């Protein structure tokens, strides 16, 4: 077994190579007819191989390793009933369970809206059958002392990234700002387009920003020693497991401790809830904690491709002008290449053209254009997964090929980011102002740069 996030069970793999054909970075290796392996160096951990794999542990195969042994090898609960597939991701379920039982720890969890909307699928019901409040209630029931909605906390990422966009527009260089919230896209650029690293926004992704907040301002606010905070993030994504372990993502002032101690996928949260015997459908809804940020119009941001572009563009005018301004009309049009949509807005003296791309392969023509010196766009958003985060590698695994696309469309419809209506300015929001006034002083300032921003490094591939 390698150390990578994504693993292929050598006993279960039938060498059909569907995962390899689907891999955007050709990270699946192996001879024809032999079980395949993942090249950890190339792998961007998007987990689409997990979603496509259909080789499973058949009860009719007497020669297989006993199921109990396989569950133990994968650190899965003995209570797990579902079939086990050849491609899987490493998990830290046992760590989370132990932390929840540890009275010395203050457990803080953040949960993404894509998780809340899709998790009913793993309980045999249609996506969207549970309210976010019921998911919040199940997190509290599991024992988490604080439970936040990641998307609402994304306010800080959006605000910081909008500041970065404005600064780069004002300087008139290093454009486009390439959004850095998809960890698979970031690793892809680091290894395949290292010359474009400085185009990446230095802002951390929303769940890292939230993790950083938990262990700094959040802990202080709750009167908790930051060292006792155990921070968990529930995401639709397997690549966030890699991101949370990056050396750059250490909590401020804490030797070696992570901003996000444990990442759980949507599927893994369902395992925890089932293992704990919680009747998620019978729970009365509870509210997510709102003391760090509560911005209703951000509830479904970061769910589908284009959401970040909309939120950042929408926030940029409030940083450029002081007067009242009617909401920007941000409408996407299909680009000429597959999986990409473009939009353009006028903000003060700037015409900002933006592109949002789903699928790493679909991003290549745009990255090549930047490399060739073309300056068409001011902002670029890349989502590694086919329909953005709703189709992430950690989402409920749709069993049949013909059901995948309809399921992804359903999830996307349920979490569509509202582009119209009342969108109060993020920077004028009371909770956001409190965080800045009480802790960071100002957006894109020294302290926020130290805690909410990061840097990237070229990754040289061995072959």
């Amino acid at each position, binding site marked *: 077994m390698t150390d990578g996030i994504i693993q292929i069970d050598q006993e279960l793999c039938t060498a059909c190579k569907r995962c390899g054909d689907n891999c955007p970075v050709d990270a699946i290796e192996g001879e024809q007819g032999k079980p395949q392996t993942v090249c950890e160096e190339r792998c961007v951990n998007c987990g689409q191989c997990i979603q496509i794999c259909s*080789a499973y542990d058949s009860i009719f195969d007497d020669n297989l390793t006993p199921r109990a042994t396989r569950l133990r090898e994968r650190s899965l609960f003995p209570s797990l*009933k*579902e079939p086990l597939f050849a491609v899987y991701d490493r998990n830290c379920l046992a760590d989370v369970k132990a932390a929840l039982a540890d009275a010395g720890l203050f457990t803080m969890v953040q949960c993404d809206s894509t998780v809340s909307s899709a998790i009913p*699928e*793993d*309980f045999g019901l249609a996506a969207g059958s549970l309210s976010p409040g019921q998911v919040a209630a199940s997190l509290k029931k599991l024992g988490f002392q604080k439970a936040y909605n990641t998307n609402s906390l994304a306010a800080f990422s959006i605000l910081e990234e909008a500041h970065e966009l404005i600064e780069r527009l004002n300087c008139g260089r290093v454009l486009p700002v390439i959004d850095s919230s998809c960890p698979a896209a970031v690793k892809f650029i680091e290894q395949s387009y290292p010359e474009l690293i400085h185009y990446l926004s230095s802002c951390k992704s929303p769940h890292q920003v939230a993790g950083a907040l938990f262990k700094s301002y959040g802990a202080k606010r709750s009167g908790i020693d930051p060292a006792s905070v155990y921070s968990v993030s529930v995401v639709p994504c397997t690549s966030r497991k890699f991101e949370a372990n990056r050396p750059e993502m250490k909590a401020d002032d804490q030797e070696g401790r992570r901003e996000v101690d444990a990442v759980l996928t949507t599927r893994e949260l369902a395992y925890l809830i089932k293992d704990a015997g919680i009747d998620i459908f019978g729970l009365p809804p509870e509210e997510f904690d709102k003391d760090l940020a509560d911005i209703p119009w951000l509830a479904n941001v970061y769910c589908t491709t284009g959401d970040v572009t909309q939120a950042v563009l929408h926030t940029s005018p409030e940083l450029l002008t002081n007067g009242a301004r009617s909401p920007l009309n941000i409408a996407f049009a299909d680009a000429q290449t597959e999986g990409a949509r473009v939009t353009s807005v006028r903000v003060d003296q700037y015409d900002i053209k933006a592109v949002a791309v789903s699928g790493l392969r679909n991003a290549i023509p745009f990255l090549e254009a930047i490399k060739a010196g073309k300056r068409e766009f001011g902002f670029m958003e890349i989502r590694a997964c086919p329909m953005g985060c709703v189709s992430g590698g950690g989402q409920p*695994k749709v*069993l049949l090929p013909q*059901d995948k696309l309809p399921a992804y469309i359903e999830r996307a419809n349920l979490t569509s980011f509202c582009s119209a209506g009342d969108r109060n300015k993020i920077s004028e929001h009371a909770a956001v102002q409190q965080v800045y006034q009480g802790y960071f002083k100002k957006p894109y300032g020294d302290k926020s740069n130290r805690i909410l921003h990061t840097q990237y490094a070229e990754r040289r591939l061995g072959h």
Partner: protein
Amino acid sequence: MKAERLNSFVLADSEKCTGCKTCEIACAVAHMEQKAGTAGATDGPFMPRLYVMRTPEVTVPVQCRQCEDAPCAIVCQMSAISRVDGMILVDTERCVGCKLCLMACPFGAIELVPQHRGTKPIYPGAWKEQEDWIGRRLYRANKCDLCAGRDKGPACVLACPQKALEMVNPAAASRKRNLEAAVSLLECAKGFDA
């Protein structure tokens, strides 16, 4: 006299099959009491009625041929296997799990599988007092029913990403072969002319 219609059956093309097992999953899901859309919603092992076989030379699913003179039906002492609407079907209520059909099938297309009522496993009468003893669940014969009653036909055929499976209508298949032979004869004759 017009010939009676031969039983249709599902057949796989080993040239196209990659061994991914999607057909097994589609079969298992199609026969679930509570259909699972996702892996997480599946609350037990998959119980497919076709089996992907792998050897160094070939990868292909094996399934029931809906035999005209079905050995499984012949050997069944309980008259639990019969031909209904062109399908060889098991009446699980009559089956006692004697396994003769499993032994008689030339393709190994019959398996004995643990029985459920809803999500609750069923235990044989003789072991009622030992319900915790998972090793002694009630097993009964299970085989391909061509997804009888399913609108879109056999689930395995629809789900195969390689389009390696087809529902064969034997009469139509032999007419197609006849036609192909006729065309190839013509091509052959053209060769002589030249």
